[in-house]
């Protein structure tokens, strides 16, 4: 009986060795994870202009073109390139008689290459969250019919701005 028990133990030990070998070979387990989320984009905020009348230089006279000084504010967190500046209403002056009798000042609008040319050959780029001034040469015209009371007046030119992200 003693001899028989020893052999039974040998058999059991053989079986256990199978378990241990397998356990070592595949000791690492893995787990998986899943889930959902979202990423949301902002919407563009409109460009605006900043009053710059105090910075204007008198260079406009009847029959000639003059400078349009414009300061554009970009409230977006990314840089913007202005692609067009167009007229957006009646041009007025700081002299009521000038306007009543006809100031004769016009702005035809600028876009594309013409805008770049008017800006001295550079794109009208505005950094994120920044306001930048641009001097657009020859952008406004004063006709010969401009009233004499317009001498020394400062004109306000309403504009509409278009641009795109320039990141």
């Amino acid at each position: 009986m003693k001899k028989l028990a020893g052999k039974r133990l040998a058999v059991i030990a053989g079986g256990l060795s199978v378990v241990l070998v397998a356990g070592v070979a595949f000791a690492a387990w893995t787990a998986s994870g899943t889930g959902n989320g979202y990423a949301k984009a902002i919407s563009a905020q409109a460009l605006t202009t900043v009053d710059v009348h105090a910075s204007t230089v008198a260079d406009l006279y009847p029959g000639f073109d003059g400078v349009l000084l414009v300061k554009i504010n970009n409230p977006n967190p990314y840089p913007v390139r202005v692609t067009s500046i167009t007229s957006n209403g009646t041009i007025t002056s700081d002299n009521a008689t000038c306007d009543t009798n006809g100031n004769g000042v016009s702005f035809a609008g600028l876009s594309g290459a013409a805008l770049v040319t008017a800006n001295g050959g550079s794109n009208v780029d505005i950094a994120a969250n920044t306001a930048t001034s641009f001097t657009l040469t020859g952008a406004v015209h004063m006709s010969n019919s401009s009233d004499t009371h317009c001498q020394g007046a400062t004109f306000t030119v309403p504009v509409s701005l278009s641009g795109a992200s320039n990141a």
Partner: protein
Amino acid sequence: METTSRAVYSVTSERTTRAKFVSWLLTALVAAGIASSVSFPLVGGASPSSGKPAGNTSVLGVQIAGPSAVQNVGNALDCVDDAKNPTGKSILPPCPKSFSIGGNISGLFPGAHLNLPVLVTNQNSQDIKVMQIQITVTGTDKADCSTGTTNLQPTNYTGPGFVVARNSTVTVLMPITMPGSVANACQGATFQLRYSGSAVKP
């Protein structure tokens, strides 16, 4: 993929009764998923099927075919599933079932390079080491704003891995980019993100 490897173990059996014990033991291995089949090709001595072997011993060559899914063996041996251990008396640790991943971000804009905070929650009773997290953009709420990389570029986590302690949450920052060339239609869009990941025992 089915495993075709086989291991051969020599077992000494005195008589048929011993062979029955071996059969019982190896059948249990099959039941446990360790082996898919067991056969007893005779190596030496008389065949059990031919009656009692002559002498005191017979030498059996025991062939144990490997299981069809080797990974399951590791799981079965290294930890125990809660469903199979309702009393919690097993000496093996419970198998981690899964972990959860989530995270949102707002304020994306053209050219944005932001860090997406991804929360990894380990609700298991064991620590895990997260080895990779994959982010897939599965949809948007704007018709002309596609899920392609031209509009949004999340970055996957590929290691070296980080430990999330049991029943805790870790936040990892994963870069996400909205290209400057993103479609105009993506203004105000919400991109649906799908997370998947894997972890190992630390």
